[in-house]
């Protein structure tokens, strides 16, 4: 107020008033900057936690896919059928929970889900009903599913590593 009414400080009292005002403004700006920084940091931490959760979930999915692929390799179709059902439901949950991180792979994952649905249906006919070409195709499809899930899990891990090294 003093500065507005009388822009030129005349004595020590005016100078101290002006200084207090300037220091106050600086402190306010610093507090705002700190608060924004804290908000950004909190948001970044939140994103990192969600990204870490995605990595954990997709690693678990890759583990199930590896088991499924192993059962198919060993011709253990009853176990493979159960693992296919597990993988289907777990993948659906992970896709829903981590939609923001898997958006770029949504089409590919959706196709894998359809593969899993058709495998479940096909294996319900009983393991004896599979032809030799179906067994070969099953190996290929489960291999591709494993590759896709392990790849995504690896992507999340390397992103996290990159961010840690940037800090």
């Amino acid at each position: 107020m003093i500065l507005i009414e009388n822009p030129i400080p005349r004595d020590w009292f005016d100078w101290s008033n002006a200084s207090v005002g300037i220091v106050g403004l600086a402190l306010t700006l610093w507090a705002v900057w700190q608060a924004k920084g804290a908000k950004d940091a909190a948001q970044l931490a939140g994103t990192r936690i969600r990204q870490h959760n995605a990595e954990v979930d997709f690693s678990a999915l890759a583990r199930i896919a590896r088991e499924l692929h192993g059962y198919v390799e060993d011709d253990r179709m009853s176990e493979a059928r159960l693992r296919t059902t597990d993988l289907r439901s777990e993948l659906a949950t992970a896709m829903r929970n981590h939609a923001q991180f898997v958006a770029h792979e949504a089409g590919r994952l959706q196709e894998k889900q359809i593969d899993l649905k058709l495998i479940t249906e096909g294996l319900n006919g009983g393991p004896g009903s599979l032809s030799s070409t179906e067994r070969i195709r099953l190996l290929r499809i489960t291999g591709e599913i494993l590759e896709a899930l392990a790849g995504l899990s690896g992507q999340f891990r390397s992103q996290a590593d990159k961010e840690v090294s940037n800090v």
Partner: protein
Amino acid sequence: MSEKSQSFVDQLLEKTREGKISWTTAFEDGQFKTVLPGGQLAFVVQVKGDARRILMLDERQEAVLDETITKAETEGEPEHHPKIKLYAGIGELQDLARSQALQVNVKLVQAEQLLNLI
């Protein structure tokens, strides 16, 4: 439901011929699938023995439409019966999907070229 299935089969035939839809092999023999852009819907076409099937799945892989017709169901029906048309349409679509998924034409040309080199 046959009417709806027929309409989808016709549209899929048209889009496949135009090259707007691409098919890939699915798990079972004679089974092919296509996921529409956006991934919200997928179609599966299958010929198994004398049974022909068209299946439409939503984004949760729930079967929105699932129609199977066997040869026996079409026998004794008049020539223009919807089931006969659908049976033929699914067969044609599966043949087209198979050709595209396995790149039959490309491989036939390659085979001819290779044989000519011998």
